[in-house]
Structures are given as structure tokens and as C-alpha cells.
């Protein structure tokens, strides 16, 4: 019961914040992808850096749980390409479809239904596709800390790279018509 309440509470807070930044608005998401509005990508990258710093504190305190997904060169890469095409086409990703459907956007309700269909088809093909695409090039649960030896140094490296990305998104994404 506690798990359900924690999940509900976390979801409500998460859904509220992503609506307020405009991530549930597929038009704004398209404008982010078209390099017109910089706020959604800057928000996502900044949230990751801040979360990584927070998680460093949690693990130092021995609180919480982590689980790193393995990298499969073929499956993770191919999946990302399929995912990117769907995200660019609809302007929704799995989390935002729930919040946007709750917000009352009918196109998000159809994205949600399409999502159920896509998940059901994958679940049907799991036993065939995972040994074919995922397992052969699965290189394991790699993290940046494997190279830096210390988690703190890896978080610092992540923060530097993401900050550079945030800076360039601010420079290259534009609202001004005369910049286009």
C-alpha cells in the first residue's frame, strides 16, 4: 500500500512539473525538436545533472536503490532510432502521453492507445527479438564511473558535458524570425 501511495504521489508531482515546463504540449515539443524553443531540452539536461548530484549524496548516505540497465550496441541503438522517429512524429514520449492525456489532449489519448499496441506487440515478440537483437551485443551494465574510478569525478564530467550542451542549445535554438 505504501508503494502505491508513493508511486501515485511521485507520479502526480512529476506529471504536474512536466506540464508546467510545456513537455505535455506536443506543439512545444515539436518546436524544441525543430530548434525553435530551447527550454524543454535545457530543462531535461539540467534535471539529469542535478539528479546525478543528488543521487551521489543518496548513495553516500546509503539511501535508495539504483539499477543500471545494460547497453546492447544493436538493440539499444536500434530501439533509440525507432523511439526517436516516434517522438519526432507525435511529439510525445511514454511519460508525457499519460500526463497529456490527463490534461485532456485527445491526440495524446491516441498516442497512449498506440503505445499500448506497441508494447503488446513487443511483448508478443520478446522471446524472438531479445536473443536476436539484444543479447549478442550486450556489453553489460557499463557506467562512466568504470573509467573515472570515482563516482564523484564521473558526475563532474557529466555536469561539464551537459552544461556545454545546455549552453549551445541556448545559443543555437532561437525564437527570433530573423535568425532563421
Amino acid at each position, binding site marked *: 500500500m505504501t*508503494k502505491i501511495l508513493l*508511486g501515485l504521489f*511521485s*507520479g502526480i*508531482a*512529476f506529471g*504536474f512539473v*512536466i*506540464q*508546467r515546463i510545456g513537455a*505535455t504540449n506536443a*506543439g512545444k515539443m*515539436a518546436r524544441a*525538436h525543430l*530548434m525553435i524553443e530551447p527550454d*524543454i*531540452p535545457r530543462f531535461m539536461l*539540467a*534535471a539529469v545533472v542535478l539528479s546525478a548530484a543528488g*543521487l551521489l*549524496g543518496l548513495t553516500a548516505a546509503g539511501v535508495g*536503490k539504483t539499477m*543500471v*540497465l545494460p547497453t546492447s550496441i544493436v538493440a539499444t541503438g536500434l*530501439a*533509440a532510432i*525507432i*523511439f*526517436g*522517429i*516516434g*517522438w*519526432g*512524429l507525435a*511529439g510525445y*514520449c*511514454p511519460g508525457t502521453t*499519460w*500526463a497529456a492525456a*490527463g*490534461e485532456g*489532449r*485527445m*491526440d495524446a489519448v491516441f*498516442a*497512449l492507445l*498506440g*503505445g499500448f*499496441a*506497441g508494447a503488446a506487440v*513487443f*511483448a508478443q515478440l*520478446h522471446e524472438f*527479438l531479445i536473443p536476436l537483437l539484444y543479447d549478442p551485443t550486450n556489453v553489460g551494465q557499463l557506467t*562512466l*564511473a568504470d573509467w573515472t574510478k570515482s563516482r564523484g569525478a564521473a*558526475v563532474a564530467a557529466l555536469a561539464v558535458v551537459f552544461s556545454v550542451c545546455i549552453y549551445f542549445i541556448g545559443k543555437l535554438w532561437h525564437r*527570433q*524570425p530573423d535568425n*532563421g
Partner: protein
Amino acid sequence: MQQSSEHSAYWKWIPASFALAGIIVFIFATFGPPASSSGFVSTLKGFFQVVAPGYAASKTHYQIIPGPGSWLFAFVVGMAIGGFVAGRTFPVPTRDVPRIWEQRFGSSRRRRYAATFAGGFLILFGARLAGGCTLGLFISGSTQLAISGLYFGVLIFAFAMITARVVYGPVRKETIE
């Protein structure tokens, strides 16, 4: 006028990113890595457990993800509630067909809904193949410094940006204003 009220209604990206990071760290502390594409599988598992229990029990993908009654399911339901509350307390009305889409493809709802159904299919098929989505793999993974999350993140942004160029065509003045 419409534009300026829209701009002030949305949160600024820096405070919003602190808010989201606070929620993400809270989730790591009280549950583990947050995820949302798993919530789709969780919901489907609950559906098949009622209509076709033998099928649900026989498929690996439904064995590895917990059904309704799990944190994962509660989280996506919560997201819908959060979106509902946020939408009810927001001055900008929602659109079923985004303006930028309408400028390119007209106001046909059927065409827009067909496109978002197809897009929804692709994002969930891809997410389940990779084992996570924007949240469950890119954000959760990168927060844990996972190479899988960073690799997935670079490619989803790149292909979404290329796809948006193809879908919307060259960016015109009226799109930017």
C-alpha cells in the same frame, strides 16, 4: 497578447529543473530508478490477467514486469492525475491538434490522431526493446551515469530532430513567431 500570456504561464527552465530533480531524487530514495514505459506493460499485464490469464503467464515480458498494484502502475496513473490537475490550473487552453501541426497538415483530427497513434506505437516498441524510455532509460540511466542511458539519449534526440524536420518541413517565419 496570447503569446505573452503563454510565455509567462510556463515555468522557467532552471527552477523547473530543480523541481524535477527533487522529485527524481525522492523517487530514487523511496523506490529506485523512475520509469514510465514499464507502466504500459504493467497495465497490459493486468488486462491480460483478466481476459487471457494463460497468455499473460506464458510471456516473458509480462513475467518480468509487475502488474497493477505495483509502484510502476501507480506512477503512470499519478502522471495522468498530475497532468489533469496541472491542466485545470493553467490559463492556456489545450488543443487536440497542435498549431504547428495544423499549419502543415490542416485541422483534420483523424490525420493527427493516426499520426500520434503511430508515434505512440513506435516509442513504446522502441522503449520496450531498449528496456526504458526518455525517463526510464535516458533520465534514470544518465543520472546513474549509465552508458546505456547516454547512448540512448544521444540517438533519440538526433532522430527526433531529423524526423521533426521531415514531418514539418523547412522552418518558416510563422512557425517561429
